[in-house]
């Protein structure tokens, strides 16, 4: 070959196309969250999960396996349980842990499968709202529950559990 005039060249080449060209789908959305939120969530799932196994198994045992089982569950049964602060605390813990555990589980599922940012935001908003509503509602129910309801004359309602007679 012979030497001739050089081809016009760009100043310093073109960027290496295949080491930098990445499908935008794969560009990391969060540059670096730097907080340990995901780790905290991960630990919480394990700790709350282990606690929930005990809480729920006992809950199921007491509600379904002893006495008359499912037939025994009525207003009086609930009232009887919540008259005892231990059960109040039990159910309260269960409510909070279960909702947070479930809510966080749903959040990871949304993170996994919702690819569009807008979908993610929507789904997570709905999720947060429902978790908050349920937790607040449940907590209020447990704390404000009045087992021995009376009518406006002060008589115990028929449905009031038996122990109310002794109060």
């Amino acid at each position: 070959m012979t030497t001739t005039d050089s081809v016009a060249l760009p100043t310093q080449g073109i960027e290496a196309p295949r080491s930098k060209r990445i499908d935008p789908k794969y560009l990391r959305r969060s540059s670096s969250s730097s907080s340990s939120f995901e780790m905290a969530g991960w630990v919480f799932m394990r700790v709350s999960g282990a606690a929930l196994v005990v809480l729920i198994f006992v809950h199921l045992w007491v509600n379904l396996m002893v006495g008359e089982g499912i037939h025994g569950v009525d207003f009086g049964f609930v009232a009887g349980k919540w008259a005892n602060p231990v059960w109040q605390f039990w159910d309260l813990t269960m409510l909070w842990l279960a909702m947070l555990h479930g809510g966080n589980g749903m959040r990871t599922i949304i993170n996994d499968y919702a690819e569009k940012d807008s979908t993610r935001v929507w789904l997570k908003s709905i999720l947060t709202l429902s978790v908050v509503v349920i937790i607040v509602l449940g907590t209020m129910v447990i704390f404000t529950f009045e087992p021995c309801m009376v009518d406006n004359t002060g008589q115990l309602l028929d449905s009031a559990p038996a122990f109310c007679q002794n109060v």
Partner: protein
Amino acid sequence: MSTPTKEAAEPASKIDMKESGGGGEVPSFEITLQVRRYDPEFSDEARWDEWQLTMYGTDRVLDALHKVKWNIDGSLTFRRSCAHGVCGSDAMRINGRNRLACKVLLKDLDTSKPIMVEPIKGLPVEKDLIVDMEPFFQSYREIMPFMVNNSPAPTAERLQSPEDRERFDDTTKCILCAACTSSCPVFWTDGQYFGPAAIVNAHRFIFDSRDDAGDMRLEVLNDKEGVWRCRTTFNCTDACPRGIEVTKAIQEVKRAVLTRSM
């Protein structure tokens, strides 16, 4: 002195050979090979192509693919290089599982049914069995896959005890074939997760006693898309052609992140 376990006694110069079994006529058999084809230059649709082939006892899936490419349809496209499981070019999905085509013997598969070959999942398919590996290598690059040692280098080697060397031996086997990452259900979803291979390569340095940048890698992997997205499905461990206990490595990194932040 590092004598291997024991200096083997000088072996006999002659021994009685058992009539070594095996060998003999290499049996041949028929297979049906189905490959998921895709070439956007000619069609936006993927399709399944099927071939009947006569193959032999020592043939691997890669040999069947070559037989098609070389004798029947030259447009069948796949990557391969070393053909014995050390270069990591030919990870693909064989009968639904990620495998290296050069390591799966045809006789070990159920040849009464078609053998189905597809590209690995979760990475953009470029043509037939070729996928775009860039996102995979990008994750690899982000975890700083190289040794960082800030202390002044000695004139001879840096010392490392055999135990410290053994600590990360498993993860040094990685050949970056992407079989693990593309077997991970979490990676399939949105392609954001760093994936097993990146974590394995981070592990290889985090647990190397000579390295000083473990903290920075743990920081990277404590990210939203880092180790906490691992759901321990063990697909990665099953898929690894090098037998790396991938999930175990990820778990060790998780524990390291935990310990570090306590």
